[in-house]
């Protein structure tokens, strides 16, 4: 009798399984069609780093202390600055990151004394050569400034 | 309590080596014992008989000597025990892979990383490194190295 019971119980379990899958046929889909549909990024999202544009000054606050460069485990960051006056502080002239090496640990962001390093929300990145992975944050800053200015304008017009 | 059992076994076997207890819990082990090279097989056999398993084997490279660190543990709470063994740079410790089968791979790993040979272990092919690797990357003479100390610098 156990022979038939095994077949029956086994068959029943299979039908139960098919019940689970067929129910899914009528449920809404969970995937999104990516390039056309996008899901909102989380506010904590860690993209590559970028220089923050402060509203009051309209630019970054980097003081070229080189802490980020020193703390980076993978040697991603290259910062250059020069003194404009003999005794004055250094100003940033060049900030390049090699994103191909970055492991997004965030140590540079945490160590930044002026909080001018932040994570960008950039995730659609593609590169074909090593040179494509070099991100020039100063060039990026210019577009950022431009963008905030435009946003401000549209806001003013709207107001 | 297997830990009590192994304590008495080790004291019988190695009356000269004191058990160094650890109250702070930093080392993660209840106590540690230093055994001579000739004693490691005896110690392993005692641990096997007491129902312990071999958690890890690793080595430290000092200027004057290698130090092999064996961690044994059993399925009772807080029963980890460290067995330490000093092993000169040209000495060959005996294998324990016939006592603990896991030791086979662990010794292979120590051998490829530090160049310590284990007598009696037939299969010392590199495990993680390429098959033809003839370098020992975790030695302090290989590649970029922060510091190379004598043993007493750290352990006094």
């Amino acid at each position, binding site marked *: 009798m156990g022979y038939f019971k095994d077949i029956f119980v086994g068959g029943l379990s299979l039908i139960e399984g098919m019940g689970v*899958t067929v129910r*899914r046929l009528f449920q809404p*889909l*969970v*995937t999104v069609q990516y390039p056309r549909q996008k899901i909102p990024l989380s506010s904590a999202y860690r993209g590559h780093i970028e220089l923050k544009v402060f509203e009051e000054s309209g630019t970054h606050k980097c003081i070229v202390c080189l802490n980020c460069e020193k703390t980076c485990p993978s040697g991603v960051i290259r910062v250059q600055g020069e003194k404009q006056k003999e005794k004055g502080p250094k100003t940033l002239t060049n900030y390049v990151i090699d994103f191909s090496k970055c492991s997004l640990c965030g140590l540079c962001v945490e160590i930044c004394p002026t909080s001018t390093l932040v994570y960008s929300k950039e995730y659609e990145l593609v590169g074909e050569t090593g040179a494509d992975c070099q991100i020039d944050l100063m060039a990026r800053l210019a577009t950022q400034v431009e963008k905030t200015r435009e946003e401000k304008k549209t806001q003013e017009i709207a107001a | 309590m297997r830990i009590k059992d192994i304590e008495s076994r080790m004291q019988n076997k190695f009356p000269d080596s004191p058990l160094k207890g650890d109250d702070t819990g930093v080392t993660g082990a209840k106590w540690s014992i230093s055994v001579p090279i000739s004693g490691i097989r005896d110690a392993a056999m005692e641990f096997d008989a007491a129902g312990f398993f071999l958690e890890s084997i690793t080595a430290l490279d000092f200027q004057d000597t290698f130090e092999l660190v064996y961690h044994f543990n059993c399925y009772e709470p807080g029963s980890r025990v460290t067995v330490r063994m000093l092993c000169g740079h040209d000495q060959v410790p005996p294998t324990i892979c016939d006592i603990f089968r896991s030791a086979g791979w662990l010794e292979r790993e120590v051998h490829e990383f530090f160049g310590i040979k284990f007598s009696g272990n037939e299969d010392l092919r590199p495990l993680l490194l390429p098959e033809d690797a003839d370098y020992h990357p975790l030695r302090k003479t290989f590649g970029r190295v922060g510091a190379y100390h004598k043993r007493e610098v750290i352990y006094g």
Partner: protein
Amino acid sequence: MSEGLLGSELFRLILGLVIVIAFSQLNALFLVWLERKVSGHIQLRPGPMEVGPHGLLQTIADGVKLIGKELILPLKADKKLFFLAPVLVFTPVLVGFLVLPFSPGLIIHDMNVGVLLVFAFSTITVLAILTGGWASNNKYALLGAVRSVAQNVAYEIPLLLAVLSVVLMVHSLSFSHIVESQKTVWFIFLQPLAGLIYLIAATAETNRAPFDIPEAESELVAGFHTEYSGMGFGLFFLAEYTNMFLVCAVATSLFFGGWNGLFGFSFGIPGVFWFLLKTYLLIFVIMWVRWTFPRVRFDQLMNFSWKVLIPLSIVNLLITAVVVKII
């Protein structure tokens, strides 16, 4: 003989073969799309969406890609057999289509041994798989091929025994006779066990999951067609789907009333649509099964055949024989 050339049997056959090839290919393309859609929706994703409306042209795009790919011949493979196998795998399927009763007038060649012909030729499939697996000179392919032979030998027996109980009831091996005698009651209601056994064995015959052990991609990479690329693989792939259509069409004819409507009512729907509707429903069930279950192990598969399916089908056949004799 006044019809002349157009009415001749030879012309009918050739025309039929052309139609069969065209239909079977289009049908296979559609089935591949259907499979991807069914699996997609079962898994809460939409499946192909990009080429054509709802991805309908996706398989055609895939086919074009496959044709454009290089046919790689492994070193030390048996060249003749290697290229023969994908061609060989299609023969039995095409022959099977010749005797399928789509509707009363729509049979290319109504043979009085039609059922026998289909099953006789379907054995060639396994020969093709063995040829392909052997010729590839690859251990995974050979393992898959050997598994396939053992599996097909084991599952042809319950398959034929199940079919035999239907044949016993009709006293005919002709498809049109069998379908006609189901005018009011489908045989699935008289022979539920035989029908079930047929469907299970047919799934195994076509190497579909959960009986896809000759391919078993997580064990044998791709089984017997591991070494096939481009259209070599494409032919095996299309043959699988065409084969699936064939076994489901045969099941429709034998158990589900073929072109007949439900309990004698056809609701004004032409027979050929009834036939296709039932066949596609069966195909959907087979797909549904595939996307639900894990794969059975090789020895369990054999056990199931020899210890469960064959005894049950023999008992079923005996009972049928006795009942038919009494009535």
